């Protein structure tokens, strides 16, 4: 969030009332003023125009008219109104400030400067505001030192004046706010002075607006919202308050941001700030054409608008239009050589598009151009952390925080880095596994193995090897993971890949069984490959789809599974076409859309693989790397038009899920014709043997009542209707329970096999399967189930003990060793026993040296431990007999 330009529009209507009262019909002015304050702009403008015609010398009418016209974007008319007054009153300096501001909105800097100078020289009643505007001109043209000197003088003005008008107080507050860039304490002074301005004139809308903007710039969304709401309560169409609220919504990640900025533009279609903001949202949605339209419109009004030029440069950068990009950046720096905001915008846009290395480059330039760009230091530091440059990242974040202690993102990240100092790093051939020191010994045993396996397999599949080491961080607190990713808590994801750095929740960060850390790690490492191969230009939908697709290739039951909600969304036409699938990730319009988009994207990948083979994917990734658009990629690699592909994919979904869709009948809710009584549920299942949901509900009910014989055919039928469904209340799970109750362990095991083959995150099913298989003497299958359960939750010592025992039985000693090491890593109370068992496993694996060392650890704790004593003798005898 950059400070951007702050334009001060002082409403002097109240002050002018005193001048007016003796000269004009107070009612007319009051009526026009009320209309303006209530957002009835046409009425206000008409009234003020009539008044101005009758009284061409009334400066406050003139100012009010110019202000009202400007507020709704009628800049030419505002120019004319100002020029008429000036022509009619050549000796009056009173309209020069207002005129200057309108000229500035249109990019006429030199003329604006002249106008402000005239206001100051002529000692207009709003001369202080004119002086402020001169200071702002200096600041935004890069002469920061001169600007700060100007702003500094406002402090003396404030301190030496007995009473200042509301408008003057607003000017002082704004000057102090700019001084706050170098001294953050002054922001509090600025806020106090704005409050004084509002107290002096409660109808000073601009002061309220600037308070909101100040809060927003200091990351305080809730107070900002309050300030904007106060304006909108009276004037629901105030364009700048709507824009402010749009910014608050964007700050909070809400999709309402677009709606609000559209409303703002309805009031003032020529607001360059609103155009630039909307363009920024459109860039996030990758709608570059519409973003460009908004930017062109903004620059048509003010060709010198630096923020608009920055967004233009961003679009040119993302579209790989290098010459145009260079021209734009050169032009911006000519207008203001110290405009760090250009590179901050470029860095932020790059980061949003996962071009983290480029974000580092732009962040570096931002702070080179403007050493007071705290936001520049923040984006630089944040992105350095994302590419694994931890030291430099931290240093730059420290600078950012020192300069702007209000930046919650930066503060949170610095606090997180303090936490990371207490983490342990376990290096492997290609990875650094970074995790909490209390978990590292256990977790790294499995994470290192899986990460190396993933790298080897994905490198083989894609013919590409990302730079190493890749840093993998696992956080025990989800809030820490969230801060690592976006700087704030509240992120819903499980993991993220920045390319060379992967961050994810540790299995201990969430309830046991709520996610599969193994598949999450594989998913994120797949991203590392896809980002690397496409040089971070792969679109979001494809990278997510491929990552889920790769999960499924890695292990049975990994990757998102089909669920009834997705099918119902498809049936109801709520899925996005592939050409718009990115929107499902970036701006979901309903809560489930993000999850459905992941699954849908993975199905798109399955569809592509079916028709074009796996090799299409590396080719697509390279095509994106080379700067091709989605349409070009589909045409060149898949020989299809994007619209045709949409149709073909929809046909594919229909064919694939037609049968299942037919068995998902509508469910009436209580109070809407639906009955959820026990009898009603059973009756519904009896009436329609093709109603999957009814059958599952009935089966569940019968199981709970222990009516297993009745439940079996119901659940078998349900399973046959929707065999892919392996969610929480799947028929597989209930049938397994049923068979187990009846002692039919073989059948129970088969149900659990089928369930976990589709859903490898079902922790209870995996443990139950292991127990049953063990009971049946199927040792290898039992071990396999336990092994898979570790990818859900690796911190249950009993699971590791059992798997160690089974592995020893099977003679897979390396796994037995690993499992005994895991038991030890989980800090058992009986450490001597754990050491002894590990020593036994080492012996089984033929590793006498480690066995000797480990059994000594057991005897160190418990010298009288006879079993350990005997093992030591055994080892010694074996060494002697060599």
């Amino acid at each position, binding site marked *: 969030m950059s400070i951007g330009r702050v334009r001060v529009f002082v409403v002097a209507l109240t002050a002018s009332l005193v001048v007016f009262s003796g000269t004009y019909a107070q009612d007319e002015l009051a009526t026009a003023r009320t209309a303006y304050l209530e957002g009835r702009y046409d009425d206000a403008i008409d009234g003020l125009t009539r008044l101005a015609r009758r009284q061409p010398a009334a400066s406050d009418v003139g100012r009010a008219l110019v202000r009202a016209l400007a507020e709704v974007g009628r800049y030419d008319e505002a120019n004319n109104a100002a020029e008429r007054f000036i022509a009619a009153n050549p000796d009056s300096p009173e309209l020069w400030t207002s005129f200057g501001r309108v000229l500035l909105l249109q990019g006429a800097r030199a003329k604006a400067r002249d106008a402000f100078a005239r206001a100051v020289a002529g000692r207009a009643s709003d001369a202080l505001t004119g002086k402020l505007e001169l200071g702002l001109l200096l600041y935004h043209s890069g002469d920061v030192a001169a600007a700060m000197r100007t702003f500094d003088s406002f402090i003396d003005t404030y301190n030496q004046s007995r009473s200042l008008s509301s408008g003057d107080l607003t000017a002082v507050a704004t000057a102090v706010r700019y001084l706050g860039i170098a001294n953050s304490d002054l922001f509090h002074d600025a806020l106090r002075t704005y409050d004084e301005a509002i107290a002096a004139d409660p109808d000073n809308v601009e002061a309220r607006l600037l308070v909101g903007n100040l809060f927003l710039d200091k990351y305080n969304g809730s107070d900002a919202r309050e300030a904007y709401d106060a304006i909108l309560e009276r004037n629901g169409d105030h364009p700048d308050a709507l824009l402010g609220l749009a910014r608050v919504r964007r700050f909070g990640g809400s999709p309402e941001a677009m709606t609000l900025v559209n409303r703002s533009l309805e009031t003032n279609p020529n607001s360059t700030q609103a155009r630039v903001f909307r363009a920024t949202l459109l860039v996030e949605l990758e709608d570059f054409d519409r973003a460009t339209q908004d930017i062109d419109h903004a620059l048509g009004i003010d060709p010198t608008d630096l923020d608009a030029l920055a967004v233009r440069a961003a679009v040119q950068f993302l579209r790989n239009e290098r010459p145009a990009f260079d021209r734009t950046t050169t032009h911006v720096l000519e207008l203001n050589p110290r405009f760090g905001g250009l590179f901050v915008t470029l860095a932020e846009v790059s980061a949003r598009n996962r071009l983290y290395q480029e974000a580092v480059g732009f962040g570096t330039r931002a702070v080179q151009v403007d050493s007071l760009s705290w936001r520049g230091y923040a984006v630089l530091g944040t992105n350095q952390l994302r590419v694994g440059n931890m030291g430099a990242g931290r240093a730059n974040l420290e600078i950012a925080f020192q300069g702007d202690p209000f930046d919650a993102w930066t503060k949170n990240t610095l606090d997180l880095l303090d936490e990371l100092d207490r983490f342990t790093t376990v290096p492997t051939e290609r990875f650094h596994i970074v995790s909490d020191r209390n978990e590292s010994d256990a977790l790294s045993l499995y994470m290192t193995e899986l990460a190396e396996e993933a790298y080897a397999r994905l490198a083989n599949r894609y013919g590409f090897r990302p730079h190493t080491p890749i840093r993998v961080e696992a956080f025990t607190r989800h809030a820490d993971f969230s801060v690592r990713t976006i700087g704030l808590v509240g992120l819903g994801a499980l993991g993220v890949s920045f390319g060379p750095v992967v961050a994810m929740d540790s299995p201990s960060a969430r309830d046991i069984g709520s996610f599969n850390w193994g598949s999450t790690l594989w998913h994120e490492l797949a991203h590392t490959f896809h980002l690397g191969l496409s040089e971070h230009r792969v679109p979001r939908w494809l990278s997510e789809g491929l990552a889920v697709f790769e999960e499924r290739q890695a292990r049975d039951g990994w990757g998102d599974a089909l669920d009834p909600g997705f099918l119902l969304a498809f049936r109801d036409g709520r899925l996005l076409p592939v050409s718009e699938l990115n929107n499902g990730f970036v701006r979901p319009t309903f809560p489930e859309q993000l999850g459905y988009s992941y699954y849908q994207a993975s199905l798109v990948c399955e569809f592509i693989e079916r028709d074009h083979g796996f090799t299409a994917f590396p080719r697509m990734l390279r095509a994106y790397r080379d700067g091709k658009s989605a349409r070009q990629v589909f045409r060149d690699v898949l020989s299809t038009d994007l619209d045709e592909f949409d149709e073909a994919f929809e046909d594919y979904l229909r064919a694939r899920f037609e049968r299942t869709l037919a068995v998902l009948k509508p469910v009436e809710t209580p109070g809407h014709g639906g009955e959820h009584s026990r009898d009603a549920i059973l009756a519904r299942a009896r009436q329609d043997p093709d109603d999957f949901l009814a059958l599952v509900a009935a089966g569940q009910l019968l199981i709970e009542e222990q009516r297993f014989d009745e439940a079996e055919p119901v659940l078998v039928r349900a399973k046959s209707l929707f065999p892919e469904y392996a969610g929480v209340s799947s028929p597989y799970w209930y049938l397994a329970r049923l068979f187990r109750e009846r002692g039919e362990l073989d059948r129970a095991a088969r149900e659990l096999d089928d369930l976990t083959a589709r859903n490898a995150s079902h922790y209870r099913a995996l443990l139950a399967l292991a127990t049953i298989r063990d009971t049946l003497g199927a040792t290898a299958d039992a071990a396999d189930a336990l092994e898979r359960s570790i990818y859900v939750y690796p911190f249950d010592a009993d699971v590791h003990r059992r798997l160690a025992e089974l592995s020893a039985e099977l003679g897979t000693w390396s796994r037995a060793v690993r499992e005994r090491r895991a038991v030890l890593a989980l800090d058992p109370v009986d450490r001597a026993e754990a050491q002894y068992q590990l020593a036994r496993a080492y012996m089984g694996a033929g590793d006498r040296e480690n066995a000797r060392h480990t059994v000594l650890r057991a005897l160190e704790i*418990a010298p009288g431990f006879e079993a350990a004593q005997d093992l030591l003798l055994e080892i010694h005898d074996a060494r002697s007999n060599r």
Partner: protein
Amino acid sequence: MTRHCMRAWLVALLSLGPASGEAQTYLLVVSGIGGEAQYRASFDEWSTTLLTAAQDRLKLPADHIVYLCEDPDVVAGSRKSTKANLDAAVMEIASRAEPDALVVIVFIGHGSAVGGSARINLPGPDVSAEDIAALLTRFPTQQLVVANLASASGDFLPVLSGSRRTIITATRSGRERYETVFASFFVRAFASDGADTDKNERVSVLEAFEFARREVNRHYDTGNRLVTEHALLDDNGDSKGSTEPDPRTGDGAIAASLFLDNPLAAAVATLPDDPELRALYQARQRLEQAIATLRARKDELAPDIYESELERLALELARTSRTIRERETRNPE
């Protein structure tokens, strides 16, 4: 562990004089009022786990075990856990217990600390810490273990602390008033194998406390919950309990030498009459002591020297233990 076991062994020798062949353990388990069905079930389960372990694993004679509970119909031979019955049970044990007996009293249930008075909720009038302190005066010479495993039990400790008393509470103060899980793990220590950390095939009171304490922490950690109970142990009579007793520096030395299967008096190792076997036993004791001494010096020694010396001693100890077993197998006494 070995070092503090040895110290306790010395303490036992010095404080009790010649071992009495008649010293025994007496166990009184008091299960309070549950209130809700889930708590009644838990209290019953924990109590019966301890009682079963006491009989089956620890081989306590049945007539040395007294069980008071909310519903005596559930367990044959039990009585209702009223204050009056508690008083009677204590009197009964006091009248029978040998001067050097070990008396173990375990309270399971809900506690409270309302108005500064720490209590255990029983059917009928509750029993306070002061009430229990008065009951304990009936054991002037015996070794006592009093384990209050209820919620809000911490305030019992300073009231009950004293000479020849090991006091355990499930919480560190009366403010920790939510239901506790310490009891479930404490009883499990005696009922299963995981608590015998020094592998001497016996679970001391300290080992049981440590086991329960660590499993409580693991329980909350696994569930991603705040730890709302912190157990205490005091056995040095200073009225201050320790959350992590260290026999070398404070609490734990006595508790480390207390075993429910054998009271302190019998913790003194009895040497066999056979002179050769006797020599082997003494050698074994010397070697165990040598390892304990070596361990204490670990930080002073170079790692390779420490390791080789540990291995040498451990090998010799292993051979000695094996020889003892072989001899005992050939000539069982």
